[in-house]
């Protein structure tokens, strides 16, 4: 199976059970609760990561939540 992840083509062993979340796990992506995923141009709701299948030709982008704050700085 060929997909594109963050701009790079990748060949994966066929696995009909593969979901977005399990793919991120395969890629050793940590802190997955803080990851936002775009699948073929659409941003996925985080709860669907575990149920959305990965298909041949998918174009997937993912990145981490970017946020913070100045509270609790002495």
């Amino acid at each position, binding site marked *: 199976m060929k997909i594109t992840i963050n701009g790079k083509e990748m060949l994966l062993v066929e696995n009909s059970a593969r979901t977005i979340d399990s793919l991120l796990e395969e890629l050793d992506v940590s*802190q997955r609760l803080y990851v936002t995923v775009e699948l073929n141009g659409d*941003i996925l709701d985080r709860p669907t990561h575990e149920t959305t299948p990965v298909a041949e030709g998918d174009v997937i982008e993912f990145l981490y*939540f*970017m*946020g*913070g*704050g*100045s509270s609790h*700085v002495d």
Partner: protein
Amino acid sequence: MIRIPQAIHDDMIAHAREGFPLEVCGILGGEGESVSAIYRMTNTDASNEHFMMEPREQFAVVKDLRAKGLTMLAIYHSHPETPARPSEEDIKLALTPDVSYLIISLAAADAVVKSYKISAGNVQQEQIETIV
């Protein structure tokens, strides 16, 4: 160390002042240690104490950087009223690997900009070299 053109360094401070009293945020891109691009981002929290980037803007920046052969080198945000040190929240949410985290403090009359490498809760300040 991170190298930042003076114009981009000045633009980050200008961004922070324009957004005051709210926090502002943005992304710096470039190659190696050298910054060559700045992207002002929307703080969807519109808060004096927090920032959160908008995912669609984040993806757009990442794709633009890739198209230009650049990478994301730093994430910056302002501290309108507190020092240029990462807060507990900053440290906890420093999740993007291999980038610098810049903080622009407007707590004093003169803005202060500092850069940090943050990984797994460990914080290390790094030198900023401004270049012309």
